[in-house]
Structure formats: C-alpha cells, structure tokens
C-alpha cells in the first residue's frame, strides 16, 4: 500500500491536498463572520459602563438598577446585617469568600451585586430566605446578607460586577 502510494504520489496529489487545505481555510474564513455576528454588537458593548448615585438609598433599603441589560442589586446594609455577614466562618460556605472580599474597604455598608441567581439566572427576592438575604423562587437557592450562596442548587455566590467608588455617594459600574 505504502509503496503503491509512494509510487503514485505525484505533483497532482500534492496539488489535490494543497487545494483542499486552502479550500478548508477559505470555508472557515467565510463561516467565522457568520458566527461572530451573533456576539454582542457595538451598541450592546457601548452600554458597558454606568454611573449611579447612592445618596437617595436609605439604610436597609435595596434598589435594582440595570447594567448591560442585567439587573444589579444595590443594598444599603444595616450594621446588624454587616455584623452577621462578617461573623460567618468560611467553613460554613459553599463558595468561601469573606465579607471584606465582597465589599469595598470603607464602604462596607454597600453591597453591589448582579441580581441573577448563579443557578439559572432568575432574580432572587430580597429580605427573604433562611439567611437574612435573598431567596430565589425558581429553584430554591438561599443567599445570605453578603449575597453568598448558603443552600440550594446555585453553585456560586451572587456575582460582583466590576465597580469603584468615584466619591462616597457615586459609584461607577463597569
């Protein structure tokens, strides 16, 4: 077989393989833009950064704002909630993270999280659940007062968006 192939391995075979290879690359080059058009477009990406004024949010109040089409919880936590979140030992957590890691230093009263349950994306209900935080009605995930997953099918804590404090009452998300 090998000797026969060698015997017949000619310039024609080389051209055949080379043409096939160039054709495959060409086909892939045509297919890629047709798939890539599905990705988020420029107008969607243009909404990637917003500023939000915290001044109007009372202690114990929570608001839901929109960022990149996603709901975001901004909660002004009470000292009791902060103390409760900080007292939880890491060993009790499914996705271990300290309360300090979930807030910005000096702004511990502010909790900013993407409001989609990390299980399948429903919006959890605030001030409910067994851990004084959020409860997702879809499949029963409980989050605590730092938005950490405590019980239920969700694999991870509520996701923190990238954000920073521009002043004490102004944050920029994204």
């Amino acid at each position, binding site marked *: 077989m090998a000797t026969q192939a060698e015997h017949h391995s000619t310039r024609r075979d080389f051209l055949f393989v080379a043409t096939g290879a160039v054709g495959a690359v060409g086909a892939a080059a045509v297919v890629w833009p047709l798939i890539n058009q599905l990705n*988020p477009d420029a107008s969607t990406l243009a909404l990637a950064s917003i500023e939000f004024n915290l001044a109007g949010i009372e202690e114990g109040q929570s608001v839901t704002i929109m960022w990149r089409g996603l709901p975001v919880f901004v909660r002004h936590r009470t000292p009791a909630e902060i103390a409760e979140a900080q007292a939880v030992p890491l060993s009790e957590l499914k996705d271990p993270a300290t309360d300090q890691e979930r807030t910005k230093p000096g702004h511990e009263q502010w909790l900013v999280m993407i409001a989609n349950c990390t299980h399948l994306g429903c919006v959890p209900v605030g001030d409910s659940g067994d851990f004084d935080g959020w409860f997702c*009605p879809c499949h029963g995930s409980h989050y605590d007062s730092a938005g950490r997953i405590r019980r239920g099918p969700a694999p991870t804590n509520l996701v923190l968006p990238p954000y920073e404090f521009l002043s004490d009452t102004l944050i920029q998300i994204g």
Partner: protein
Amino acid sequence: MSEHSTYTPGSGVEKWLDERLPIIRFSKEHLMDFPTPKNLNYWWTFGAILAFMLVVQIITGVVLAMHYTPNVALAFDSVEHIRRDVNGGRIIQATHAVGASMFFAAVYIHIFRGMYFGSYKAPREILWILGVLIFVLMMATAFMGYVLPWGQMSGWAATVITNIFAAIPVVGTPLLELLRGGFSVGNPTLNRFFSLHYLLPFVIAAVVVLHIWALHVPGNNNPTGVDVKSSRDTVPFHPYYTMKDLFGIVLFLIPFAWFVFFAPDILGHPDNYIPFNPQVTPAHIVPEWYFLPFYAILRAIDFNILFIDSKLGGVIFFGGSILILFFLPWLDTSKVRSGTFRPMFKWFYWLFVVNFVALTYLGAAPAEGIYVVLAKITTFYYFAHFLIILPLLSRLETPRPLPTSISESVLGKAHS
C-alpha cells in the same frame, strides 16, 4: 418490500414525463400502492397526524409572521394586536399556540407507540434516530416560539434555558453571550429566535422526508412485530391507510378544536400576559407541560457529583435524558419486537410510562419537601429503565411464541 413497479404510464404525456421526471411513478409507488401491514391499529395513525400538525403549524406560523414584530418594544403588543385586531387573528394565533401542545401530545404518543412495539429495532434504527432528531428539533422550535410573545414566562424561559449553556466549563460564558447576543436576554436574542423559529420547521420537514424514506426501505413495523412475509400480509396504503389516517386526524381535531375555540389559554400561564420585566422573576416559573419531565430531571440534580457541580450535573442529566433515546436500539437487545409477546417487558414498559407521567407532575411541583425526593427517585428510574432494566430483560425474559405471520395473527390459525 421493493416489489415490481405497479405503475404503467397511461397517456403519451405521462410516458413523456415518466422518462424525464418520474414523479407520478414515485407518488403511485410510495403514496398509493405502498404495501402496508394489514394489522396496523390506531396508534399507527399518529405518524400522519404529526405530518398534518407540522403543516398546520407552518401555515398558521407563516400567517402570524405577517403581523408579528420581533422587537422588545413591540413584540408583546403585536401579539395582542393579532388576537384583537387582525381578522380571524384570535383563532389563527390560538391554533398555532394550542397546535404546539397538540403536536407534542401526538409526538409523545408516537414515541411511546414505537417503544412498546419495538419499532426502533433492526432494521429500523436509523428511522428511530431520525425520529429522535425530529423530537429535539421540535423542542428547540417550540422553546424559541414560546419566547416570541415576550411576556414574563417568555423572557424568563429564555433566560433560564440559555443559562443552561453557561454550565459548560471554560466556554460556557462566551457561548452564553454568543447565544444571547448580549450580556442578558434582550432585543438581539428575540430577533435571532424569531429568525430560527421560522427556519427550523423547514429543517424538521426535511428530516421528516428522511424519516419517511427510512420507513419505506424496511416498511412499517406492526403490532405483532413479525416481518411481512408475503403480499397476503399487506394492503395498499391507499385507500386503506389514507382513509384510516384521515379518520384518525378527524378524531384528533375534536380536542384540538375544543381547546382553540373554548380554552385557548388553558395550557399556558397567566404570567405570560405580563410584558417581560428583566428585574422581576415570577414567583413560580414552570415551562410548558411538554417540557416538564425533562425540566424535573434538570432540577433533580441539586447536589455535587465528585468534581461536577450541581448546575453542570443537572445539565448533563437533562441532556442525557434525551440523548439516551438515540441509543435505545442498542440497549434493548431482545430479538422480539412487540411488547405484546414480552410478558416482563410489558410491565416495565407501563411502569416507565407511569414514571414519565410522575416526572411531568413533579416538573410543575415546587422544588421543596417530598417533591425533591420524588424527583430524584423518578429521575433515577428513568435512566435505570434504559441502562439497567432493558439490557437485563433482554437476557432474562422468555418471550411468548410469535405468530408465524401477520395473516395468521389477524385471521386465526384456521386460515394459515
């Protein structure tokens, strides 16, 4: 089954056409004279009922698309516009929406008929696999169609179902954004779902052609599961089965019409009459009834399995519950096709049906208390039926004696 051609061109024009495009010959051989087992019962009419339903959905769908607007600001109102303002729109929209449910009711009966009578066994494996492929395409089409009215259930169904893909390691999140065309379900998602919802029925139609082609190579299975042995076992498809199928369609249209005219919304959810709000999830979200068994399986896995987290685990079992159907011809190795002659299989078959109905019920039940435990048991049993019970039965069971021919089973031994 390939017998001598029954077609002789009558006129000169037919002869001329036959030498160029033998379409009349093809129709006569495959749609009229096709030799069909003479003992097919009414469960066999669901193939024709399904073909009829596909046509109904395509015709009503094309009409609806003339009035519908796939834009997040207008979609909800445009569906209401169809129901209130468009001439006859109330009935056309209801026919399409109820039609999806009736389509699935028929396909479940068709699939369970195939499972009881062993229609997936050699030489019909490809026929079965194409059927499962049609089922998967139907699920994708129905899901995307459900998103189009852009109510609360539509939007949250789109969110939850696309989120399933995010469970895939490494490529999950980029894939999710690729599917949605954004970071969340929004206008790009609605637009592409509309485009694909219009496309997929024609893909289904193409696979249906292959499905019928694969059917016409070995010919129909039948309630005895015994092969056709002579022309005495068969009757021509027309008029015997064209008429029987037509009568089956008429009977099927009675509940269909009842839903359309008297209870067009009874199979849907009131929450879908609230426009989609990405900030608030309805308290109790459930998919349409035809997805409930698989949804129950998705939810049942709420625990980590070794290094696989609960979310990915649920997705694997959810996908596996459908993919396992592709392998059914090789999991049930019993040589006897029909459940009628398999005393043990028959019981496990009905147990599987009861278990499937239980999964449907549990898919709609809240994820708490006893329902969580029952969902796990029924999920386990679903897989056990395919992976443990069927392979074991094939070895342990002694089938009852088969009739020597279809004719004998129909006419009794005296005539054989």
